[in-house]
């Protein structure tokens, strides 16, 4: 082997070794095929540096659903977004938001022992993650068959949902696809607030109301994080609607209780509109 051949061999070994990580990132991010613009990654990096040393950590939608369930949130048939709608969401924006909505619906059904519905929502979540080129979340752990095999075993289903949540959280951060992470969290936040307010408007449960008011903190964080994308019309509209909901939660969290009843009715209406607009947005 002459010097040129050795150099070429060394070059191939080095490019494979160093290129692996870059290729992994590229393959799993798939930004091009989702239609997300290429400036998004640079913007994500900028967003990260703006907020302390790490990006603000948001709670897991599965944990939030669990907290509501512990507070007494019961299953109401027909309240969730039908899983069959998952195929109609076309834009990365509507896919991301409804991914969060379905994650909450999946958790809500699982914690309330609605196994068959839970399977439908697990598949709906997979449809949307595939559509966003996040296929590896399900593929790496062969999750759908495992979920189906464990129907009726709530603990196992919760473990599988937590695995899905970990795969998703780490993948989105590793590939700097924070726009999807924030929109998905927004969808999950909206759906959990929707289910809680629908129950509260019929029957007041102080524990559920307390947990709903607790969501004001994560909503404030979410709005701040979304503001890095407010030059996009759909983000701007979402921020405006979420801020309007936050205004009501601020009032309900205040010590002045004289306007609470009226404000609660406003909150229910705002959350209904916010949620139904996103569910019906293709």
């Amino acid at each position, binding site marked *: 082997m002459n010097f040129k051949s050795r150099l070429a061999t060394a070059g191939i070994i*080095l490019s494979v070794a160093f290129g692996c990580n870059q290729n992994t990132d590229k393959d799993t991010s798939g930004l091009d095929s989702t239609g997300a613009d290429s400036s998004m990654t640079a913007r994500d990096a900028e967003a990260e540096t703006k907020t302390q*040393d790490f990006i603000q950590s948001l709670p897991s939608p599965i944990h939030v659903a669990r*907290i509501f369930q512990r507070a007494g949130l019961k299953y109401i048939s027909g309240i969730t977004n039908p899983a069959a709608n998952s195929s109609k969401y076309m834009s990365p924006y509507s896919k991301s938001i409804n991914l969060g909505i379905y994650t909450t619906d999946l958790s809500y059904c699982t914690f309330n022992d609605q196994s068959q519905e839970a399977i439908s929502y697990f598949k709906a979540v997979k449809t949307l993650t595939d559509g966003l080129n996040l296929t590896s979340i399900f593929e790496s752990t062969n999750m759908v068959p495992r979920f189906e095999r464990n129907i009726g075993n709530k603990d196992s289903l*919760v473990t599988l949902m937590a695995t899905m949540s970990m795969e998703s959280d780490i993948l989105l951060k590793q590939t700097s696809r924070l726009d999807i992470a924030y929109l998905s969290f927004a969808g999950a936040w909206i759906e959990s607030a929707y289910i809680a307010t629908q129950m509260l408007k019929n029957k007041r449960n102080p524990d559920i109301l307390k947990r709903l008011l607790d969501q004001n*903190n*994560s909503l404030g964080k979410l709005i701040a994080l979304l503001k890095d994308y407010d030059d996009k019309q759909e983000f701007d509209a979402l921020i405006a609607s979420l801020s309007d909901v936050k205004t009501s939660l601020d009032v309900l969290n205040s010590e002045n209780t004289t306007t609470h009843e009226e404000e609660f009715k406003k909150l229910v209406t705002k959350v209904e509109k916010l949620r139904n607009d996103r569910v019906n947005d293709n």
Partner: protein
Amino acid sequence: MKKIFFILTIAIASFGQSAFAQCSDKTIKKLCKEGLGTYIFESAAFKPLSAFGAKKNLVEAAFSVYSQESYRVLNLCQGFSDVVEFAIYDTDHNLLFSNKSDKSVKFYDFVAQKSGDFTIEFKIPPADMKSTSCCVAFAIGYK
């Protein structure tokens, strides 16, 4: 000569891989599964130390908690010459925990008294401040 050239190439390539591996998704997932025990994954955050700038000796992050919920905070810092010291502050910024007296402790379990934001601080060992292979990382679990 041929052998030396080959070994050198493999050595350089391996070094590159291990530097990347510290903050890789696979490493973080493996450490989460091992360290969270019976706690359920809530979220993780990770960044190479170099991303914070060369003079950063204290790295800070905030995470949300809900009252009466049980949490585990897991220190997943990797690649440092010594165990990284970490401290946790509650919603009113009272110090709840520090592993200063026993650096081998890598997690802290607690029940949140109030809903709000907790803070975690990592003290970077001076010897590692210019390192390119260290990863600052943590995970949160709940029950």
